[in-house]
């Protein structure tokens, strides 16, 4: 089998891409997509260790991560729609009511 290190390195790359997107992108929808990428990187790590240790627990956790990601996407996108309705923008740096000065 392919060494576990390969899968972990791939997961690290996916997480870094998602992290960069969350920090850099302006569009809230793309920021959400990058969060999904980070969750997928976590899933890949769980499954890689599950395969290495030959235990099924990682599969159960990955299943829960997918369920939480679905819930997060539903609520998050609803918030994006509510923000767009009230201020006609989805740019994360233009929603600044709670920002200090």
């Amino acid at each position, binding site marked *: 089998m392919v060494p576990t290190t390969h899968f972990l390195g791939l997961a690290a*790359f996916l997480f870094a891409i998602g992290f960069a997107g969350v920090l850099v992108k302006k569009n809230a*929808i793309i920021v959400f997509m990058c969060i999904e990428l980070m969750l*997928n990187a976590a899933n890949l790590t769980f*499954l890689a*260790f599950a395969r290495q240790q030959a235990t099924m627990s990682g599969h159960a956790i*990955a*299943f829960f991560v997918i369920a939480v990601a679905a819930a997060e996407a539903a609520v998050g996108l609803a918030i994006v729609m509510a923000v767009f309705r009230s201020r006609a923008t989805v740019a994360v740096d233009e929603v600044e009511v709670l920002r200090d000065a």
Partner: protein
Amino acid sequence: MGNTAETVLFWVFAIPLMASAAGVLAARSPVHAAMSLVSAFFWLAGIYVLLTAHLLAFVQIIVYAGAIMVLFLFVVMLLSLTDAELGLEKITALKVVGIVASAGILGLLVTAVLQGAPSGARPVPADFGTVRAVGKILFTQYLLPIEATSVLLLVAIVGAVVVAKEKI
């Protein structure tokens, strides 16, 4: 399957996966980003099959590439952003800091992975990662978490309706 064949397959899935993930970052329009993300999810499902996680690979395609991405595209369609609203991605000092920070995260994670490199994998039973095996562990050892997940999904449904609806 031989080791060489598995390594070749790993790179066959990994290289397009990394390219599509980078595509999400590079895309200016949300639709292009969503398409890149769908492609990334499909390649990742291939990686899951290599890890003998067959059920999770199919759940990945059905839930992520199917349901979640349709939700994303629906929102993109409902918002119908114009080019002016999308705006130009300006390169500010803060963004450069963000890129440097994520490169640092990548370096940190890769160093950690290389230092704690796990030894070879154990052999797995024949039913590893199948519907039967995952279902059995979900409804015995993880019974309470899976019931809690159903409540979480219910809360998410109600929450999404309450937040997104103009008048209730």
